[in-house]
């Protein structure tokens, strides 16, 4: 067992952990931070993304002991008011954007996708669409086709929607009987 001390979502914690314990399992099983989920165990899907000292990491690819002394932020602590965000509290702008733009379906990739987006925008506040698509390549989504996720990142970057939530206005108008977002 190894003693670790770290800050998670603003709270100081210390624990004795097995050296092989993964950070994601430490967060979930010991701290009850089940908002961070596991999709692949091989650092491929990005569902477990959290921030370690302000940068996104895949927490299935970090040992808990490696996080000793670090500051960890999870999806549950992302909003300004931390713990309160889960209730009807304030959302982080990226959470708000995903919500507004229908950027989630099953929601399993969403915590990681939001954490990665927050990191991406901290690094590059006004990314092009191509930079967004490249910047999210470590996070898989199997529901949305990424279409509205890209819209959500743009929305979060601009503080407003480049296109409505359906991602529709970028599309050509069509004839009657067609429901095309802005077109009808």
């Amino acid at each position, binding site marked *: 067992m190894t003693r670790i001390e770290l800050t998670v979502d603003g709270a100081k914690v210390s624990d004795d952990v*097995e050296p092989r*314990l993964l950070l994601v*399992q430490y967060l979930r099983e010991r701290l009850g931070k*089940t*908002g*961070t*989920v*596991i*999709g*692949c*165990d*091989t650092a*491929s*899907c990005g*569902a477990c993304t959290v921030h370690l000292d302000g940068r996104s990491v895949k927490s299935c690819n970090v040992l808990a002991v490696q996080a000793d002394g670090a500051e960890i932020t999870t*999806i*549950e602590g992302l909003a300004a008011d931390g713990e309160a965000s889960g209730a009807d509290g304030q*959302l982080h702008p990226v*959470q708000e954007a*995903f*919500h507004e733009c*229908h950027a989630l*379906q*099953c*929601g*399993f*990739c*969403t*915590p990681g996708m*939001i954490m990665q987006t927050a990191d991406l925008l901290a690094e590059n506040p006004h990314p092009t669409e*191509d930079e967004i*698509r490249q910047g*999210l*390549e470590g*996070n*898989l*989504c*199997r*529901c*949305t*086709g*990424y*279409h*509205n996720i*890209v819209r959500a990142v743009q929305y979060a970057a601009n503080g407003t929607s480049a296109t*409505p*939530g*359906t*991602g*529709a206005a*970028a*599309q*050509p108008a*069509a*004839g009657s*009987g*067609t*429901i*095309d*977002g802005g077109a009808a």
Partner: protein
Amino acid sequence: MTVDQEFSRLEDHRLAVGRGRFHESVRRADLAHLRVVRSAVAHGRLDGVDVAEAAAVPGVLGVFTAADLPDGPPIPARQPSPGIDFTPYLQPPLAREWVRHVGEPVAFVVAEDAYVAEDAARLVDVAISELPPVLDARRADGTTVESLAGVPARVGTIDTGYGDVAGAFDQAATVVELELDTGRHSAMPLENRGLTVGFDHDTERLVVWGAAKVPFWNRNVIARYLGVPDDRLHMRESDVGGSFGIRGELYAEDLLTVWAASRLRRTIRWVEDREEHLLAANHARQQHHRVRAAFTPEGRMTALDDEAWLDTGAYIRTHGAVVAALTAGMFAGPYRVPAFRSQVHLVVTNKMGVGTYRAPGRFQNNAAREHLMDLAASRLGLSPEEVRLRNLPTGEETPDARPMRIFGAPMLLDGGDHHGHVTKALATVGWDTWTARAGRARSEGRAVGVGMAAILEKAGLGHENAVVSVDTSGGVRVAVGSTSVGQGAETVLAIAAAEVLGVPPQAVRVVLSDTDTLHDGGGTFASRTTVVAGTAVHQAAEQVRDRAARTAARILQAEPEDVVVRDGFAASRHAPKRQLPLGALAQAAAAPGFLRPGEEPGLIARSTFSAPTMTYPPGVHFAEVEVDTDIGEVRVTRYAVTYEIGRTMHEGMARGQVTGGVAQGIGGALYEDLPYDADGVPLVRSQRDYRVPLARDLPDIEVHLFEDVPAPGNPLGVRGVGEAGIAGAGAAVMNAVRDALQLTAPLPRLPLTQATVLRAIRDRDAPAR
């Protein structure tokens, strides 16, 4: 009342803040972890399983083999198929005498800690005498299977059709034919399979979190297996990280986990890792098609004939022959086909079992048929769109019942004017600009091409139950047998109730598939939730609204027809200022003074909707690709889908279903495959090896939903939209690649991996022999 289409889904807030109710979030003090020991061998006789070393590991609560389990039935097929006996092909929950694929469960460990369970599982010693594996369905056809008591490898054949096919080919001016293989895919939901099963010491009941798709059916099968009444199990609603048809079918591990909770009388959690998911969650798609079509000189199809082999894997899974039935039954797609035959042979091999993955059968049959249509266009000297338009039924020819049945029900083309849909689709996307742009790019030496696919979809199958009630505080509750598999069922069913009761959807609490709330439920599959469950909710809500109006009429001394229920109140249209809240009406509806003989006290109604036949909407897929001919890499640069949705309940969700489906379909068209080596060992063992589309691989996806022809078979007019985006993607991408490479021959297989594309280029450039 029309509900605002742009409100965010009811599910979104909790999911965006990390409060999704996935089964792994359930916290229990007595939690233990289950780990499955799997066969590392594709085929063999199971000589013995030695658990002694594993059982001695501190923290292990038990190690179990088939000898410990009840002598219960194998995992049954949910949907029988007349004329085919699946019994010899069903899987026992743990291997007994034989192992038939890598990943088959042979034992399991339960331990206090998940890490310890995994350590101990590695210490279980499994002795197997290996047999040669069978890995090719066509070659296996005609043989018998020693490890399945000597039965034929061919489980059965779905054979459907009508008309004089042979005569039409004899008379044909032009015959086109091709052979096509479709790869072995899986849905790869982001959340792995798993269950958390609690044991309630007070009631001796088992509480199950994490079931998806068909919880009532799964409950009943598990109860039979344990030898307890159905009600001993309580399936609880959970958020689920995607299903796409494969998650939530009953698997061996479900039986093992519930059995372990019952045996050990404590909470058991089973969560597979991604490698196990790749080895032992349903595979899909792998078929070989041999198809031909007969045409007149004018390009009118006179016959279509397909024979296909479905590599169904080691065992018949719960869906029985559904994939084969949909492949065969819908092979003709939207076209006017005077003589038609499609046969699909189900053949067992030594791979993971195949199940229903989003658009089962149609991803494959659309690819085979639509590639054939492009080949026909080349041979007939017509454009791809023209050969399709000449063979699509017009509004005067529909509705039309094809002289055949699908799942025992008539196949009624109820989607209106298919010719008109495609004509409108071509104009909507500006198809002539696509072909022109591709032509210009090719004249500059780039391998750019465009392809289209005209599809027939289907949606809505079976029955669903709903109970709608209003409590005395005015709260509306919907209980329904459908499940959330991440598609937004909660929101769409809230809308179905809200628009009738005149309340905002946010005011409706939807209880999905909690087996304690209903006696029976259907579940979520076949793009049926909006069609079937939505209708059941709509009908129950109408009864509640009418009862509220009758009760209000008695209080207001008005005629019931004059009472309007809106915004949570009822009022007479003649005295709109006197408003009665729904909660007060719920109270009054149970009060002796307002209750009439024969009426049920309170504002509550239940409804069952049984879809008389599926709805068959048309759609068109359009793809533009660019091929890097040096390395064979295909990039989809533009994509559009048109679809006749009947009526949209929530536009953002409907579009999301299509765009997500297209992404999965592009994955199946270009990357996704689950190959096995010559020993029957799967080559794909992690998410890294199963290449799914990333954000950078995809273009924006245009979605055009048409609401021209409301479905006649349900009062909402809805047609279902879950599978429209994936069904034609393999076909459209394949046709675009053929165009980009200007091939005269057809492409031989999906996915169009770099190797396949390079081979097609080489064959194109090879001197004619």
